[in-house]
């Protein structure tokens, strides 16, 4: 049972009671009237017996019928007698006839008087018996009104007032019903508590109020539209006073760059994020910071994270707020962007917040940019002569090392020295491919690699006519499969991680925690790594191990091996480090097993190699 059912049932019950009381009221009134008429007839008879002639015979017969006589014959006789007695008295008084009532008529009158008295007594008894009957509907109507109001309040979604003590009393009264089970009562009380808890949190803004507030400050329609898309999740976070505060500040403030009030420069997403997570204070502080630094670039107005303090947001808000705007909290902050511009300019890149050059990379968290720089350096992007530094977008990549490993294994980075450099160092020459080479493209490249000889693979992959460019045929083949069937290629052409290293998921969780992008020199003392270094390194290439036709990224193996250094050495662990994230066919797997097997095979001396 829910509160609404309880209240509705109570209202219905009271309705019935009111109807009953109104009926009873009617009966009481009738009794009172009858009693009054009885008394009136009696007093008139007492005064003068001749008053009988003035009596309303119908009224009298009704009284007698109701309270004394049950027999229709008697009633009729009574009426007749009264009529005749009336006539006799009429004659006596008006025509001065010398006559009198017969003894029979005298006797009837005496009986009649007695019957009236009897009727009066019956009425009095009846009234006494009805003392406990509720015949007044006044209090009931009042009570019903209270419940009706309470029901209205409960049903009204916009009403956020909590229940008052009086209302709580009403609930308790309604629940005082023996028909309700203990569990019902318990769940009803919980519901009351929940309602009151909810009442406290909801600020109770309606969509119209929010939009009115936007319109009052002349915000563009795009803001309305974006708000409407997220109204359900955003509204509880909004507060019109706060919005007013922020908007009036933004309307008032401007920078010395002649671009007018700040308000006109914000993107809709920035404004809404500020309304939801920011405050006048965070905005004010940011404006002052920008004035001090002399940074008035447009990019900041399209970066919500600049104007709010995500630390506050993450501390005070809970999971329910994980809405689309939440992602902005992990964008670059103001300081990140300034630092990125400085760092990348120092590295010789043409990036500028002011001119809007390289914005995607500038809007990457500074920490990630630095990490990516280290990764690019460790994968040899700043070596060789002449140095061909990677494109600036490479610094904005996620999981950059994983991606570079796959490019190495596809033979497109630090590839075989027997092939022309624009094939085997494709990624160095076209470093934008770090971003543009997707997992799907790589799946296909690996499939080709597993099917064809090294020479044929590169021939198939690269264009004949445009040196160093990927062949058109390769992409036709790519799209010929349709993206959805590349999944089938992954599943059918290559071994699954679990097949190659049964404990893969355990290692995965360790790697997730401990991997730090580098490896310790200590691991080179381990027999397993020593064996790989001695047997499977490619001379002059620091980035690959070669197991038959299978190319494996050396930095990857060393990185994972280092992260798993607490685990006991074993074939499973080594196989995991080698094959993690790689495309390995059944044949290549067998070759690989044959290559690492000797490490674990007992030698003549009984020790491991």
């Amino acid at each position: 049972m829910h509160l609404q059912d309880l209240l509705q049932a109570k209202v219905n019950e009271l309705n019935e009671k009111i109807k009953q009381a109104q009926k009873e009221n009617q009966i009481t009134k009738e009794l009172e009237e009858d009693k009054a008429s009885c008394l009136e007839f009696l007093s008139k008879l007492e005064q003068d017996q001749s008053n009988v002639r003035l009596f309303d015979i119908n009224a009298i017969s009704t009284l007698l019928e109701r309270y004394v006589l049950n027999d229709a014959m008697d009633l009729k006789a009574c009426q007749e007698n009264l009529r005749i007695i009336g006539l006799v008295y009429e004659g006596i008084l008006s025509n001065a006839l010398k006559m009198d009532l017969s003894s029979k008529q005298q006797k009837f009158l005496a009986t009649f008087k007695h019957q009236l008295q009897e009727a009066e007594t019956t009425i009095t008894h009846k009234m006494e018996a009805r003392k406990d009957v509720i015949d007044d509907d006044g209090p009931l109507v009042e009570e019903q009104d209270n419940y009706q109001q309470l029901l209205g309040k409960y049903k009204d979604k916009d009403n956020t007032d909590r229940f008052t003590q009086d209302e709580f009393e009403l609930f308790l009264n309604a629940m005082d019903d023996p028909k309700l089970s203990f569990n019902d009562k318990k769940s009803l009380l919980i519901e009351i508590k929940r309602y009151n808890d909810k009442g406290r949190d909801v600020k109770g803004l309606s969509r119209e109020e929010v939009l009115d507030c936007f319109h009052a400050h002349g915000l563009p329609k795009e803001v309305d539209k974006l708000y409407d898309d997220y109204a359900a999740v955003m509204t509880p976070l909004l507060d019109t006073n706060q919005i007013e505060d922020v908007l009036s500040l933004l309307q008032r403030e401007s920078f010395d760059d002649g671009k007018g009030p700040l308000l006109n420069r914000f993107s809709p997403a920035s404004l809404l994020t500020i309304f939801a997570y920011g405050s006048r204070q965070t905005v004010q502080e940011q404006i002052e910071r920008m004035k001090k630094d002399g940074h008035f670039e447009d990019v900041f107005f399209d970066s919500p994270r600049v104007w709010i303090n995500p630390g506050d947001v993450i501390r005070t808000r809970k999971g329910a707020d994980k809405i689309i705007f939440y992602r902005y909290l992990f964008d670059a902050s103001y300081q990140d962007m300034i630092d990125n511009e400085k760092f990348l300019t120092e590295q010789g890149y043409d990036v500028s917040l002011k001119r809007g050059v390289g914005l995607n990379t500038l809007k990457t968290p500074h920490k990630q940019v630095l990490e990516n720089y280290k990764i690019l350096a460790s994968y040899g992007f700043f070596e060789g002569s002449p140095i061909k530094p990677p494109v600036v977008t490479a610094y904005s990549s996620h999981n950059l090392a994983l991606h570079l490993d796959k490019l190495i294994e596809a033979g497109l980075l630090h590839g075989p020295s027997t092939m022309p450099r624009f094939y085997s160092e494709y990624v160095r020459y076209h470093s934008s491919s770090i971003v543009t080479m997707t997992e799907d493209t790589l799946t296909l490249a690996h499939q080709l690699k597993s099917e064809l000889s090294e020479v044929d693979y590169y021939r198939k992959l690269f264009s004949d006519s445009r040196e160093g460019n990927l062949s058109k045929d390769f992409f036709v083949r790519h799209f010929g499969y349709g993206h959805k069937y590349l999944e089938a290629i992954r599943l059918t052409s290559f071994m699954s991680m679990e097949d190659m290293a049964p404990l893969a998921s355990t290692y995965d969780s360790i790697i997730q925690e401990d991997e730090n992008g580098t490896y310790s020199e200590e691991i080179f003392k381990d027999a397993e790594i020593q064996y790989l270094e001695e047997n499977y390194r490619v001379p002059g290439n620091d980035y690959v191990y070669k197991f038959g036709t299978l190319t494996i990224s050396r930095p990857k193996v060393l990185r994972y091996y280092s992260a798993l250094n607490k685990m006991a050495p074993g074939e499973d662990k080594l196989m995991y480090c080698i094959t993690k994230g790689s495309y390995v066919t059944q044949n290549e797997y067998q070759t690989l097993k044959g290559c690492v097997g000797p490490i674990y095979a007992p030698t003549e001396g009984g020790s491991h190699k």
Partner: protein
Amino acid sequence: MIRDKLDQLFLDIRSDCLTLIQDKKIDMEDLAFDLGLSLNEFISRFQRRHSDFSFYLRTYRLLMER
């Protein structure tokens, strides 16, 4: 798990292939010949999933290229 995924992919790719054969009015015997199969073998592989999934991928690519 992988088997379920492949079963689903088989249903998808079969329906895509049949649509392509119908739309492009492809002669099944020619197609089977290009894939190095008899027509009977070709049809039976479309009735039940064959263990070599690459057959379906090859068929699909051939049909896309025609």
